[in-house]
């Protein structure tokens, strides 16, 4: 075999191996993430589609309202007056480990909320 052919085969084999994760993922069935929802609650503080896409923005807006403007409560669409609080309102229903952390792991992002805010179910 000529040297040229050996090199070309080597490159082809290398590319095939290096790209393996891509075709493996393409061939695998989709693995949707099913998150546990709080039992006994039927509605979040906003529609699901909005919460899925924009809960980060919502929390940033809450943060500024509480810290900068001293507002502490709001009226949710269901008419209930609730606290603008990650720990007390969001984590009052959702479980951080099973809900927030699982999805953040799935999409590979690491929000820094938890450097300071505390999971009431596991304070330390």
């Amino acid at each position, binding site marked *: 075999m000529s040297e040229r052919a050996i090199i070309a085969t080597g490159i082809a084999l290398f590319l095939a191996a290096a790209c393996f994760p891509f075709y493996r993922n393409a061939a695998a069935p989709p693995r949707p993430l099913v998150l546990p929802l709080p039992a006994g609650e039927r509605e979040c503080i906003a529609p699901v589609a909005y919460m899925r896409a924009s809960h980060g923005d919502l929390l940033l807006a809450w*943060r500024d309202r509480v*810290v*900068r403007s*001293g507002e*502490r409560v709001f009226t949710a669409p269901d008419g209930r007056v609730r606290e603008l609080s990650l*720990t*007390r309102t969001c984590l009052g229903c959702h479980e951080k480990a099973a809900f927030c952390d699982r999805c953040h792991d799935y999409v590979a992002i690491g929000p*820094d909320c938890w*450097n*300071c*805010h*505390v*999971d*009431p179910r596991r*304070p*330390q």
Partner: protein
Amino acid sequence: MKITRQAFLALLAAAARAFPRPRRMAMAIDLAKCWKDRGCTRCSQACHAAHNVPQIPDRRREIKWIWKDRFENAFGEESASPAVAGAPVPLLCNHCEHPACVKVCPTGATFKRASDGLVMMDEHRCIGCRYCMAACPYGSRSFNWSDPRPFLRTIDPAYPTRTKGVVEKCTFCAERLARGGQPACVEVCPPKAMVFGDAADPSSAVAQLLQTRHAFRRKPELGAGPNVFYLL
């Protein structure tokens, strides 16, 4: 259009109601009452438990919101007559009228609240430059040199901890005031030495004390206008 005197006055009154006078929250600490038990640390215990303030043994890295120091360290050698020298004085952020910390903060992380004069910390915006610590004439601020959580025996999940690289200090318990409460130190003090309220409201207990008792403040010559007053 001609406006009658009566209508003009009514208009003024309506305007005054529409723009309520801002409050000025202040604290008066009666030292004679505080000194009934000079070893008492209930105020700092209650504050530090309520706000997840860590106990760091290394004094160069300690974090404190309210603590005690000797009279002469708080008010200067010249004000400390033998009768008071060495006596412990509770110290905390003075929520100054003209806070130097707010002037120097490059990010707006520390700011003075217009509605009630509280000097607040927005930990989300603090970049840890510590300009505010250099500017504060009262040593009211502490820096987190490391993650504070390992130094907390218990964490109250109702209040966030801080993280490595941010500055913290007393907030006059803004979170308790929002629920209509009093600061944790004021509430727990056994001899009720601390009185807290709106000094701009002449009928408040703190305004009355400041009217009727001899009150003094730390380093008044600096013009910072501390809102923590001491009574003797």
